Each structure stands twice: as structure tokens, then as C-alpha cells.
């Protein structure tokens, strides 16, 4: 994977270089290099145990790297304790001090800096207004709802004006609706404050809706770094493709490699497809297609409607039989068993004009997609 870091702005706010972390003989991180740009919203995305929280803890200073270096604001912070780093953390379970009220929790950081009481009172008031918790100063944190505790945790961190705000799965304890709202609030807050946010999550939807860049991690290393669009549309390998959303994978064989494209044979097709990787003739490959990019029509409809057939076959069609349809509310999934082996799922919108158009199990269908929307990757075991 090409390292985005090498083409980044001159001075990243956080720079990890070849960081390896070993816990009890197990690699939590394996030679990870990552630059966090000033002012961006970066999300580290991956399943539990992939090392994403370890990266956050290394930045915060709760852990030291086994090897490699961490620099914040151009300065190596190896051995620097958390209290002397200009970053703050919003913890997964918030870790609000239960023996203090909202005011004392939020004021904690400024008190540690021994700021004058009047200034602290003013700052706490301003910060609580920012997170819409005015008037909650005297409440004990245990009496607050999850969403309110979350906002206290954010206020307690941002009042210190950190260079980077680290957020460790901050929304995982909230219910779906509140989580959606907080995603928006966090994004707006980040724009307003101009603070760099580094967020850790296992929820790809959350990562995509908030971030400027997404880092996809797996098993202690980085698989891909990029904008949400590039990660979703151009996954660099099967792991990333599968982790971010649904994906159809069709086995193929490269017949003739070319510049930025390759002639590929699969499912009775033998056509040129867009391909970023360098293939040799005879290489096995995967064709990756998102379900929402696939179109499905019955052979019967195509035979009856030459115009539709014309439009349809301008794409590339593969054939199969409908196995089942799954109702999803706004959309439905059509599961098609392909004639040449394999199964693909296509997501279809309901046709407002013709409600009778619905696929039945056993229907003979053609599956097609717009040329260039496929991703061709080297074969992986």
C-alpha cells in the first residue's frame, strides 16, 4: 500500500514512524507509520484487537512503543508522560470522575495548570455552552444520561485546547439515534474548534460520515489510508473491500494486461476492465462489485423490450438465476446464483411506477454494471 504520509504536508501534527508494540509477546502493532495532518478529522477503523486503540494510547502517552518513534508537533515524545503532552483523550467509557460534579470534571485540566479561579469559571461556562450543557455545572456526573456524560467528557478534554483530541470509540455506548446525532455534533464541533481529531471506531458508517481520512487497520498493521470515498470505491485489497460495506467478489483470470486496465475473463465475459495493479497474462484476479452498483433484469423483460436490452447490454452482463430476494425497507437485495458458479447480491430500489416488478426465486436474470465501476485486484488466497 502506498504510504500517504510521504506525500503529506511538511509538518504533521502527529507522526508515527515504524512503530511496533508488543504486549506479552504478541504484536499489537507491527511497523506502523502514520501522519496525522493539522486540523483533519482522522478515523482509525478496524475490528476489535486490530491495534487501533493501541495507536491512540501511544499518542496519549499511556503506552510506550516497543520500537519506532512518536512525534507530536514535530517533537519526539518518547518517554514523555501523558500530563506533558498537548493531547487529550475522550475515553470509551468516558472515565468521568464520579466524585466530582460537572463543573469540577470540566475544570480539572485547568486546575492542574493552576489557572486563576475566575478564568476557570469563565472557561468552564464557555465550554459547557459549546456542548449545550449550560446549567449542568452542579450536577453529579453519575446522574447524567449517556449522551450528557459523553458531552461532559468532550468538554473536559477540549477545554485544554489540545493540539489533537483523541476519541476512543466515544459513541459506542450510545443508542442508534443518539449516536447519529453525536456524529454530526462531533463533526460540527471539530470544524468550529479547528482541533485535529483522531477517532477510533469499528463502525465503518461512523468512520465514513465524520472523517476527512480513514485508516483501515487489520491485525496490527495499516491496510489502507484514504478519504472515505477512495477507501470505499477503491479498496486496495479484499480485506478492506469486505470490511467497509458489502461487496461481491467474482473470480477472474487476466488474459491480457494493459496500461491502467486489463482484459479479464470471468463468467463468460472477456472484456477490458479498469485495473490499477500490474498483472501478467494468466494471473488469477478478483473482480469486486458493490451491490448498489449492480443492475438486474429478467431475461424475459430484456427480450420483450429492445430499448432496455440495448441500454443494458452496453454494460457487461453475466447470467444467473434469482435465489431469493431480501426486503430491506427502502431497498431490496436480489441474490443471484451465477451460471458459471458463485453468488452475487444486487441492491435494487423499488420502482415507484411499477410495483409488480419484483424478482421471484428461479427467475432467469442478467446482471450488469456500468463500465469502470468494478475494481480488479490480484488473487488472494
Amino acid at each position: 500500500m502506498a504510504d500517504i504520509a510521504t506525500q503529506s504536508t511538511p509538518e504533521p501534527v502527529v507522526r508515527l514512524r515504524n512503530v511496533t508494540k508488543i504486549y506479552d509477546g504478541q504484536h499489537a502493532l507491527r511497523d506502523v507509520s502514520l501522519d496525522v495532518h493539522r486540523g483533519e478529522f482522522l478515523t482509525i477503523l478496524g475490528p476489535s484487537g486490530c491495534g487501533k486503540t493501541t495507536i491512540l494510547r501511544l499518542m496519549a502517552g499511556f503506552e510506550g512503543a516497543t520500537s519506532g518513534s512518536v512525534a507530536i508537533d514535530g517533537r519526539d515524545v518518547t518517554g514523555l508522560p501523558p500530563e506533558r503532552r498537548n493531547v487529550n483523550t475522550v475515553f470509551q467509557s468516558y472515565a468521568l470522575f464520579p466524585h466530582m460534579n460537572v463543573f469540577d470534571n470540566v475544570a480539572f485540566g485547568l486546575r492542574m495548570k493552576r489557572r486563576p479561579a475566575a478564568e476557570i469559571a469563565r472557561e468552564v461556562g464557555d465550554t459547557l455552552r459549546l456542548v449545550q450543557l449550560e446549567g449542568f455545572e452542579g450536577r453529579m456526573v453519575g446522574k447524567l444520561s449517556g449522551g450528557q456524560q459523553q458531552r461532559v467528557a468532550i468538554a473536559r478534554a477540549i477545554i485544554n485546547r489540545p493540539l489533537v483530541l483523541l476519541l476512543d470509540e466515544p459513541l459506542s455506548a450510545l443508542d442508534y439515534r443518539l449516536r447519529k446525532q453525536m456524529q454530526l455534533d462531533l463533526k460540527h464541533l471539530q470544524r468550529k474548534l479547528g482541533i485535529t481529531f483522531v477517532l477510533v471506531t469499528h463502525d465503518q458508517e461512523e468512520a465514513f460520515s465524520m472523517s476527512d481520512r480513514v485508516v483501515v487497520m487489520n491485525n496490527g498493521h495499516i491496510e489502507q489510508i484514504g478519504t472515505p470515498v477512495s477507501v470505499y470505491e477503491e479498496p486496495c485489497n479484499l480485506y478492506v473491500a469486505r470490511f467497509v460495506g458489502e461487496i461481491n467478489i467474482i473470480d477472474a483470470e487476466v488474459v491480457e494486461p494493459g496500461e491502467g486496465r486489463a482484459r479479464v475473463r470471468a463468467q463468460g465475459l472477456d472484456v477490458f476492465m479498469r485495473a490499477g495493479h500490474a498483472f501478467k497474462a494468466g494471473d488469477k484476479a478478483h473482480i469486486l462489485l458493490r451491490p448498489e452498483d449492480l443492475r438486474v433484469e429478467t431475461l424475459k423483460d430484456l427480450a420483450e423490450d429492445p430499448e432496455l436490452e440495448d441500454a443494458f447490454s452496453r454494460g457487461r452482463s453475466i447470467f444467473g438465476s434469482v435465489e431469493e430476494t431480501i426486503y430491506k425497507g427502502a431497498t431490496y437485495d436480489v441474490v443471484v446464483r451465477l451460471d458459471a458458479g458463485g453468488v452475487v447480491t444486487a441492491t435494487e430500489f423499488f420502482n415507484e411506477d411499477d410495483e409488480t416488478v419484483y424478482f421471484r426465486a428461479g427467475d432467469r436474470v442478467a446482471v450488469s454494471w456500468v463500465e469502470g465501476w468494478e475494481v480488479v485486484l490480484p488473487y488472494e488466497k
Partner: protein
Amino acid sequence: MRNDGFFKRAVIIGTVGWMAVFAFVPNILVFLASFCSTSSENFIEPGFSLHNFARLMDRTHLEILLSSLRLSGLVTFICLVTAYPFAAILARTRKPLRGTLLLLVVIPFWTNSLVRTYAMTAMLNSSGIVNNVLMSLGVIDAPLAMMYTPGAVVLGLVYTLLPFMILPLYAALERLDRRYLEAARDLGASPWRAFWRVIVPLTMPGIVSGCMLVFLPGIGMFYVSDVLGGAKAMLLGNFIRDQFLTTRDWPLGAAASVTLTVLMVLMLLLYWKSAARLGKEAA
């Protein structure tokens, strides 16, 4: 199901009955006795006066009370500062080793504490282990007089009561979420300030219950004072025992007992109040 009900009732009645006969009734008797007087014919002459409590307030008795409180306070303090770091380390130790360390804390309970107190004399007397070692090392020329000093009593009490401080502190520290400490450090607190601002307040219930479990017995454990402190009555417990067994002034002993009980109740109330406040905040 019927058997279950019977068993449940039997256990409850048994326990309540036992407590009534052997704890509640004697305490009531002591309470009543504290208002009576004594005569040459009877240990207890029925009547009602606060005379005994007034006698407790005279100088010599007050001095015994105060010195006993002081001694027990010192013991509590030593136990607290010794047990806290130990409990903190214990709470962070990995599982198998932690079990072993906890076992070591508990093992002394397997021997009667009176026996253990006598065993201490073998260590502290002029031909005891401590003196022998120090003399053979050349640190001292003549044996130190350690027995029958307040120091020996303090040592004996600390030795006996230390586990009662360690266990509640361990429970509190083990329950403490490490993230609170991390949050404090993250927000700019040095380890020292994080300790005082976050860890101590959050483990206060453990600190209070440990202190009570040490301080209250520390006032009453007369046999430690008897064995290691000699004839001097250093603890309130010695004084009470003497009133019943030596001076035969039961009402005065009863009054001292009641005073001690009231002291305990007051401290329990204090503890409950602080625990309830902390619990409310933590909930």
C-alpha cells in the same frame, strides 16, 4: 419448597436467637449496669444515676481514654501508610501471584492472635531474636529494652490488625477503574496530584472501613497491652477488664464499655454517611 421455607426460617430464627441471647441481652445488661451503683454486698445495686459517667470524666480516667485513643490512632496511621502501597501493588499484581500474596495476608488468621502475641515476646525480649541479631551484627552492645513499652504495644497491635487494613483497601483499589488515573494524567495531573485528587477520594470507602476495623479493636485489645505492655493499662480495653475482674467496679466498667460502644456507633454513622455520599456520586 416447603423444606426450603423451613430451612430458611430455621436459619433466620437460629441466627436471630443466637444474637439476641449472646449479643443483644448482654449489651442491654451492660447498658443498664452503667447507670447502677455498686456496694460491698452486690456487684450491682439497682438504681439510676449518671454518676459512673461522671467518674469517667475525671482526670485519671480521661487520661486513660485519651492515651488509648492516641495509641490506637497511631496504630491506625501506621497500618494505613503501610497497607495502602501494599494493597495498591496487590491490586495491580497478576492473578496467580496475587492469590499467593493475599493468602500470605490471611495466613496469620489461622493462628490464635493471643498465641501470636505471646510469640512476639520471643522476638522482642532481651534475649529475643531481634536483640540477638542486632548484637551479633554489632549494631548494639547491650540488649534493647523493647518489651513492656508503648512501642511494643503499638508493634503488637499493628502486627495483629494490619490485615484488617489491607483487605478493605485492596477491595477498593482493585475495583478502581484504571481509566480514572489515566484520565487524570491525560488532563495534566502529575502522578502525585492524580493520587490525591482522584485515587484517594475514590478509595475513601476502603480507607474509612480499614481505619475503623483497625482503630476500634485497637482501643479494646487488652491482651496485647497485657502481654507486650506489662502491668500498665494502656488501652481502654485494659481499663474495662480491670473494672470487672480486678477492681470489681462493674458499673464503672459498664459505663466505660457503653462509652466505647457509643464511640463506635458515632464512627460507623460517619462512615455510612461518607459511603452513602460517595455511593450516590458514583452511581
